[in-house]
């Protein structure tokens, strides 16, 4: 794939490093000349363009018309929006991803045509919250504007699910147990898998089924 990344901050640099290591063709557009030079010296196999990605000529120079994906990860949401919109309308790029710096802008960017707005702040907050959480159930990831979540639940001794096999459990609609983490093992669950105390479940659920699953897990 050819991926065009706009914005050479921490996220942008880390992203181009990964993508280049995975063998993708990568181009980076960055406003700051010193940052450009540093990146070009460090990561040899990527195209670095010094310029403002909100100006079509720099996207053009970076080869936007051949890009499979354009990723906008500057620190300004309005810039990320404009980069994605110009990529789509002037260069017919099929897929655009934007970093959302202020969570309040996630909805707006999605409504105004960014294919995937990634709300970095909320993701980090959720991860930290999850680390702090003493709850038996916590949200790892919300996708599609919160319409679907990946949640993690822990089987406690008092959970009605402790020692139950999956085929005995009446799972709510639109909710599945995707994986069971038991000590160092990762189990892909089957009907005859029996849940044990301390098991961690990775569950995919909608907001409604998440509530039902919580009741099921805690007996509450």
């Amino acid at each position: 794939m050819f991926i065009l990344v706009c914005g050479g901050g921490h996220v942008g640099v880390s992203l181009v490093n990964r993508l280049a290591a995975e063998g993708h063709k990568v181009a980076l557009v960055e406003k700051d000349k010193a940052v450009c030079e540093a990146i070009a010296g460090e990561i040899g196999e990527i195209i670095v363009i010094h310029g403002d990605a909100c100006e079509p000529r720099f996207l053009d120079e970076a080869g936007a018309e051949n890009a499979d994906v354009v990723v906008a990860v500057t620190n300004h949401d309005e810039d990320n929006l404009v980069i994605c919109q110009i990529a789509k309308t002037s260069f017919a790029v099929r897929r655009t991803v934007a970093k959302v710096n202020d969570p309040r802008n996630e909805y707006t960017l999605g409504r105004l045509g960014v294919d995937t707005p990634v709300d970095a702040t909320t993701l980090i907050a959720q991860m930290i919250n999850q680390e702090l959480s003493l709850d038996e159930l916590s949200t790892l990831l919300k996708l599609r504007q919160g319409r679907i979540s990946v949640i993690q639940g822990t089987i406690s001794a008092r959970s009605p699910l402790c020692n139950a096999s999956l085929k005995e459990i009446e799972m709510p609609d639109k909710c599945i147990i995707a994986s069971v983490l038991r000590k160092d093992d990762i189990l892909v669950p089957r009907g005859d898998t029996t849940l044990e105390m301390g098991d961690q479940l990775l569950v995919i659920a909608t907001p409604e089924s998440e509530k039902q699953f919580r009741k099921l897990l805690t007996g509450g």
Partner: protein
Amino acid sequence: MNIIIVGCGRVGSKLALLLSQEGNNVTIVDDNPASLRRLGGTFNGATIIGNCFDLEILKKAGIEAADAVVVVTNGDNTNIMTSQIARQIYRVPKVIARLYDPLRTEIYQRLGLDIISGTTLVASMIRDKLVESAFSGYFIETSGMGIIEIDPPRAFAGRMVSHLNIDNEFLVATIRRGDRAIIPSPATTVEVGDTLIGIVRTESVPKIKQLFAVEG
């Protein structure tokens, strides 16, 4: 009319004062409290301090009931984002944005935004005043039509306007004579010292300039 102005710079503050003096219900939004000082003591509309594309702030400014939104912050991308929010999310009937970058102006005009960009206009006006002192053009950047000001040479005195107009290319719309302005009839004659203000098709500009230069 309920009008929201986003950006209290020189243009925004001036516009807010004008529109509120005319009896409109004006709310102005800016993220910098110091900018609101430009309004002076006579502004009788509402002011809101906050991020110019935050939906909550815009709602507080009354965007759901706004008849018009004007976006004139000094950031092009902010103006693009805010005007699209007004148009696409809140369906405000009239949304106007000011941009500096001519290229972005072109792109977003094609996408249907109503944009005013002074950059090309001012640049071409200054260029005309410098290079050809007898002409200055004010070009409306999209429709292929412009307004041109001409100081005709003395030899044009006595000519009738109907002889200067060219069908579907150039029309003398106003004559500035001293401190008066005249809307000419076809029989009005040009006097020494008149300035002609005409409507011109962009592609006919060289022809018009040549006409007034050569014959003069």
